[in-house]
């Protein structure tokens, strides 16, 4: 795998990768290698930002990143080992009807596509505990809403582009809301507080109660 590493200021490096699977593999590899020079790793859609510790030498860090042997195939193997997170959802979202219309599916087919997909947390970043989940049924790819809602309740399950995600707390948001879950996405009394971490495999289960 050819990798481009570009400078990001004088304290960080941006590793440019091909997509979510490579990002997950690199994220795991950098964390496992845990070079003493790394303060934080920020996985995103097709990049990994590696933040150096105070006083670390960026040239040395670049060299140690280049020496990492990372293969996306290792991720697939890793995926089969990682525990699945199951999230029960009531498919009662205010945008479910619009999503059905945009995708040409019935509401029941939207629910089936959402529950039968094997999702994977690609990256986080919108809010503590929020995960951008990829790998779903391509028929569910829908644009964000024309205008964002000023308040989306905690537990709302949404779709946007190739992603699905669950709002960990009440916040503004522009995703198409298809359901609600009572699963706690973020709980500071839990270790780790986030239910979802990059790389985790997620299945949504319809909760008809």
């Amino acid at each position, binding site marked *: 795998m050819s990798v481009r590493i*570009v*400078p*990001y*200021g*004088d*304290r*960080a490096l*941006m590793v440019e990768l091909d997509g979510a699977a490579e990002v997950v593999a690199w*994220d795991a590899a950098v964390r496992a290698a845990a070079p003493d020079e790394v*303060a*934080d*790793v*920020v*996985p*995103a*859609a*097709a*990049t*990994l*930002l590696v*933040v150096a510790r105070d006083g670390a030498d960026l040239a040395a860090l670049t060299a140690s990143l280049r020496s990492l042997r990372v293969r996306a195939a290792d991720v697939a193997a890793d995926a089969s080992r990682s525990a699945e997170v199951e999230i029960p959802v009531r498919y009662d979202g205010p945008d479910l009807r619009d999503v059905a219309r945009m995708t040409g599916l019935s509401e029941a087919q939207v629910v089936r596509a959402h529950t039968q997909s094997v999702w994977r947390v690609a*990256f*986080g*970043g*919108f*809010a*503590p*505990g*929020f995960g*951008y989940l990829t790998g779903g049924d391509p028929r569910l790819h829908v644009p964000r809403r024309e205008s964002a809602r000023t308040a989306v309740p905690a537990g709302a399950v949404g779709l946007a582009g190739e992603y699905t995600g669950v709002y*960990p*707390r009440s916040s503004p948001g522009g995703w198409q809301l298809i359901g609600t879950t009572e699963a706690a996405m973020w709980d*500071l009394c839990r270790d*780790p*507080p*986030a239910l*979802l*971490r*990059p790389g985790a495999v997620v299945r949504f289960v319809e909760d008809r109660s």
Partner: protein
Amino acid sequence: MTTVLEVVRSGPLALVEDLGRPGHAAIGVGRSGAADRSALRLANRLLGNGEELAAIEVTLGGLALVVRGGDAWVAVTGAPVPLTVGRRAAAPYAPVRVRSGETVRLGTPTSGLRSYVGVRGGVDVPPVLGSRSRDVLAGIGPEPLAPGTVLPVGPPPQAYPRVDAVPQRAYEEIVLRVVRGPRDEMVRDPDALVAAAWTVSPAADRVGMRLDGRALTLRDPHTAMPSEGAYRGAVQVPPSGQPVVFLADHPVTGGYPVVAVVTDADVDRAAQARPGQRVTLRWA
């Protein structure tokens, strides 16, 4: 009885901050911490504290607090403020002894934006994910200070301060060194960043500082970019062309191109720029 600081008046914004919580970006939590880390470190050094102890970050002065339960040593750094302890005038940038029952009052800084009130022993509120910092974007860490807030003071360190005063910093002129990239190819003329005269917009907080000036032109303003990790000092250019410099509580990922990144040492100076103030950028 342990020594505590009781807030009488908070001013526009007063927060507990330390050096932040690195290592949690993957679950959506940024490092946060003091906006001007060097000023926080200096306050701690003036008191013989470890540099990582928590202090109070005060935006535009106005804080008043009373010491109870024992005497305390405090030191104020960052934006220089008129300071009184009880009825005495005191100097910032030096350790000051405060007797139990006395009130420490900060006026409005003459320059700069954020002052740091350190206390010997540190502000000892319970940490969240390893840090006592308030992250205003993520909404975690101690609540903003309000009248009546009581802050416990930690046990005094073994060490004694090795300095008793240091020169006050100047914040009148703000020049920030920036490193080009990673997405400088997405604007037509990256050099416009260092050629333009920028003014700090009123929309400046711990999340970021918008710079007003002659807008940069994105090559393709309507192309959506995949989200990328973001870091303190990032100069992000949204479709408006007015750059935003990310500060302590920046989002962990962002979807607009980052055309340059302020050097780590200079981000602290960026955090002292007042709305309306001129800011100059220079290639590092």
